[in-house]
């Protein structure tokens, strides 16, 4: 991407550049002391885990585990594999609540994981993105407890409003399974945006909506078909077939290394409406459409600027 349409270049961060800056900061004169400091950190973390001396919030978010173990594990995927570039992170507030609404794609919700990583690692306030997940996520063993520990919660009105009222950054992917599981030929075509529940939550709490457009995630697992009976067997919404999966088995589960862009758009304010606005369906539909259109147009613009799926 040559021109970051509308945004100044200073607002762009690339995964590679951030990694270089960090590496430069770490190779100081005191490598020995640094090594010891890190060992102390690891040992203290291990002790906290073994004795249960850490805090978990009401949603089940375990920030100790997330910050010290899970987020660092994602760094290679973000920086080296997908080489994610972010635009407009300054549109994300540093202290107050906001609702991030993004397009969903890629068969496996890596787009959500990468967006969460971007907000935590590249926003100056290092905030956690608290995402709203589908019912299925919280029914599956392992996945459900991992989702809760990393700060995710069930996509429902009460939870969204509670998080927003507490001033958290909330992420929502309103297309749901229709978006993430759509066939490869429909890539970058936004699906229906649920029932607009996320707009009601933003209106009730008067928090701004930030449209987020993700380019690159559509190509990681090109879904060219599905196996119905396996999906029924496992109780999943779909069982994907990609050019490499299930043909190559576990090897087919490696995502293709597409180049990613995540653009955080201008916030859409919701505090200028009346108190009863959340209960006005027409207003909610209109706002939902506005958010959807903004994301769709940004996607088209980002796509015209992209020259190659893998090189960017």
């Amino acid at each position: 991407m040559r021109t970051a349409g509308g945004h100044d270049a200073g607002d762009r961060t690339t995964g590679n550049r951030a990694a270089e800056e960090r590496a430069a900061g770490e190779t100081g004169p005191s490598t020995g002391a640094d090594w010891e400091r890190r060992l102390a950190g690891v040992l203290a973390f291990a002790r906290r885990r073994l004795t249960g001396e850490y805090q978990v919030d009401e949603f089940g978010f375990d920030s100790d585990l997330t910050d010290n173990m899970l987020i660092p594990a994602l760094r290679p995927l973000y920086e080296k594999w997908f080489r994610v570039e972010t635009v407009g992170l300054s549109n994300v507030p540093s202290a107050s609540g906001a609702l991030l609404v993004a397009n969903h794609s890629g068969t496996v919700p890596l787009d959500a994981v990468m967006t969460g990583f971007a907000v935590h690692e590249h926003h100056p306030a290092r905030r956690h993105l608290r995402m709203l997940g589908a019912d299925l996520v919280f029914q599956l063993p392992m996945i459900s407890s991992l989702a809760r520990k990393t700060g995710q919660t069930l996509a429902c009105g009460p939870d969204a409003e509670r998080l927003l009222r507490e001033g958290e950054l909330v992420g929502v992917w309103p297309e749901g399974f229709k978006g993430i599981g759509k066939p490869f030929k429909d890539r970058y075509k936004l699906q229906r945006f649920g029932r607009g529940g996320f707009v009601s939550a933003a209106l009730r709490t008067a928090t701004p909506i930030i449209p987020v457009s993700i380019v690159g995630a559509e190509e990681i697992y090109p879904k060219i078909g599905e196996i119905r009976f396996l999906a029924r067997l496992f109780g999943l919404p779909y069982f994907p077939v990609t050019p490499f999966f299930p043909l190559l088995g576990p090897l087919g589960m490696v995502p293709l290394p597409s180049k990613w862009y995540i653009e955080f758009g201008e916030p859409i304010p919701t505090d200028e409406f009346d108190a009863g606005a959340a209960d006005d369906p027409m207003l909610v539909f209109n706002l939902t459409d506005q958010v959807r259109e903004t994301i769709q147009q940004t996607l088209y613009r980002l796509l015209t600027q992209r020259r190659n799926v893998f090189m960017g």
Partner: protein
Amino acid sequence: MTPNVVLVTGVSRFLGGHLAARLAANSAIERVIGVDTVPPPRDLLRRMGRAEFVRADIRNPLVTKVIAGAKVDTVVHTSITANPAGPAGRVVMKEMNVIGTMQLLAACQRSPRVGKLVVKSTSAVYGASSRDPAMFTEDMAPKDLPPGGYAKDAVEIEGYIRGFSRRRPDVGVTTLRFANFIGPRIDTVLTRYFALPVVPTVLGYDARVQLLHSDDALAVVERAVLHELPGTYNVGGDGVLLLSQAIRRAGRIGVAVPSMAVPFLSQLVRSTRLVDFSPDQVRFLNFGRVVDTTKLKRDFGFTPRWTTATAFDDYVSGRALRPVLDPDRLAAAERGILDLAARLPIR
């Protein structure tokens, strides 16, 4: 208005017995009558002081006579229990819970002097499922109606209580939906569970557990008796512990059991009489449950002194559970490794 004559059901159990003792120590209250099917343990009876114990089954019309004869004006119903007494177990428990409450409410409805009813309910009325919101407020209904056991009893009991307050709108009814009790002195399914040498959990699930210290529970019921605070309130400590975290804090070793093996295992544990696992408790251990206590703090005017974590730590130290992994030894090992690292010639 301070009550004159208080009737407390379930006095041979922790909450009822200690409540009767506290009320008996309050000289503004004329008479405290405790009712239960079995006499309280001797030390509890001694604590209860001037409170009178009447051995009666609340399923029996005798309770009606006690309420009318003693001019009871406040009824505290604490005998609803999740802990089946003895091996006869659940059928008797359900009888006591549901039929007992119906009889008691019938007696209260007959007696014009009764002006206040305080009921110990449970947050189990919200059920436990994967589709639950993170925190329940008082106006929410369960996503899946509890299929059986204690939770179903509690839902039915609350239904009868709503019916009662429709028929007797002059009676102030306080319904307290308690989170699971914990503390060094109380004996519940959960306190026995965490005292198991090896603690079984369900593989792939880690419940959010909210606890309430038994002292806070007592203080809440006492406040409801002494003040006019009708309504339904969630009662629970601040904050949550994950089940795995609680097991680690207790120094126990958790063993994850595949969910397919859970029914078999819970049968096995039940037959040892150590812990009585019912399906609704297993669901609780899967998904957990957290209630919002804003209304308790704002309207009821009570903030629990213990958080979930401090209450749990008090239980662990009070029970003298010997940790398998000693935190002090772990800290010593950590210092040892760091000392060693400092002496290594790598710099």
